[in-house]
């Protein structure tokens, strides 16, 4: 089912299994209310996150992407988030040249115990994306073809 028209935006989260996914669980266990937009994709480690997954999400029509991993030094795999931090930071810098507001993408650290922090991150990020509004999707077809289909279905 699509996101709820007019109420939700497409926000994708990539969360490491050990800290942030657990943090989101902790927030759930504590019944911390959160906006419903975010859909979480579980990965073992923030180091698994190729920034290109984020790019792919934006190309395919995501309005916001959130990456969350273990706090630096706390990586379950010792170093994954250190690499992730560099790659994601540089990538966050990069997307503005594409015409994507850097605020549509955030990476952060939430530990398994930080349910409250998770609630705060999700809430604030969701609001941040809503402030920017939807991101126009990149057409899957050529512009001429797009123009043709648009005139065909006014």
């Amino acid at each position, binding site marked *: 089912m699509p996101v709820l028209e007019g109420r939700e935006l497409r926000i994708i989260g990539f969360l490491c299994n050990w800290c942030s996914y657990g943090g989101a669980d902790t927030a759930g266990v504590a019944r911390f209310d959160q906006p419903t937009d975010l859909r979480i994709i579980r990965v073992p480690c923030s180091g698994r996150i190729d920034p290109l997954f984020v790019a792919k999400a934006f190309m*395919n029509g995501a309005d916001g992407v959130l990456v969350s991993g273990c706090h630096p030094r706390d990586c379950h795999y010792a*170093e994954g988030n250190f*690499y992730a931090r560099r790659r994601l*930071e540089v990538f966050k810098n990069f997307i503005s*040249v594409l015409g994507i*507001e850097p605020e549509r993408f955030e990476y952060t650290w939430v530990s398994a115990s930080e349910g409250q922090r998770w609630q705060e991150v999700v809430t604030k990020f969701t609001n941040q994306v809503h402030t920017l509004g939807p991101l126009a999707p990149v*057409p899957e077809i050529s512009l001429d073809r797009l123009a043709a289909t648009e005139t065909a279905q006014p």
Partner: protein
Amino acid sequence: MLEQLKDTIKKALPELDFVIGWGMGFDALHATPLFMYEPEDVDKLVWGPLNVHNLATYLPALKGRKVGIVVKGCDSRSVAELLQENLINREDVVIFGAPCRGTVSLTKIRKVIGNTGLIEDVNYADGTLTVKAEGASHEMALKDIRADKCGYCRFPNAVLSDHFVGEKRAPQVEEDTFEDLAEFESQPFEERRDFWMKEMDRCIRCYACRNACPLCVCRDHCVAQSRDPHWLSQQDGVRDKFMFQIIHATHLAGRCTTCGECERACPVDIPVLLFKRKFTKAIKDTFDYDAGLDPEATPPLLAFKANEDNIKEKEW
């Protein structure tokens, strides 16, 4: 200087399978890579602002063979980068360097003379390029028609070489200020996006940008054309073309020397170097790192610091 370069190459040639340099191409405006196997091939060597190609592109496929290569400053940085990534062996490559004054942008020349298909003669002297086409003669100052990358070049001389011919030149600029990028990013986000939509729409997916890139070393195994992983579909829509450029730029982050081959090779003139410029700036700002200067360095994205100097994480 050219003669001196030829002599140096001729001396080294017996030890080498061949030396890669530039010769004249199909007309007086277009140079072409020249593979010099015999001394008489060396006589065809040219040097000047028409030597637009980065010949380092050929090196990874020649790994294990003893070859020579003539480099401009920017080309030498690609060689350094390939060495850093163990894609070539230092002892197999003999590098011939010479000072570079910058190379032309054929697109810019076309904008001046209208059609670059009608060239009769070309002369270069003292910073001025004279092109005769359709009976008319056009004089152009090199600085007006040189590739953008030459405007912010800090390394006109080879950063590493076995033989350096000629006198080293002082760099044009001390610092790259990324004005091109700032200008582009002075547009609102939506306009930037619209700009790329139109540009990407024209892409013919020939992958010349990739194949001309000296650091696109996956080449035959590029994710752009594989089903596993299946990053891109074969659709020729804007989305997949745009995504490819993002992949290319991202894979080059921290490695790209902004040699500009991607943009130069593009047959439909899409300014794809801008993507890499953005990454280059981010890498410079965040890690104070320039790719292709030190074959021994660890590139920033393959390393980390427990406490990063210039990364400010978001506070919620």
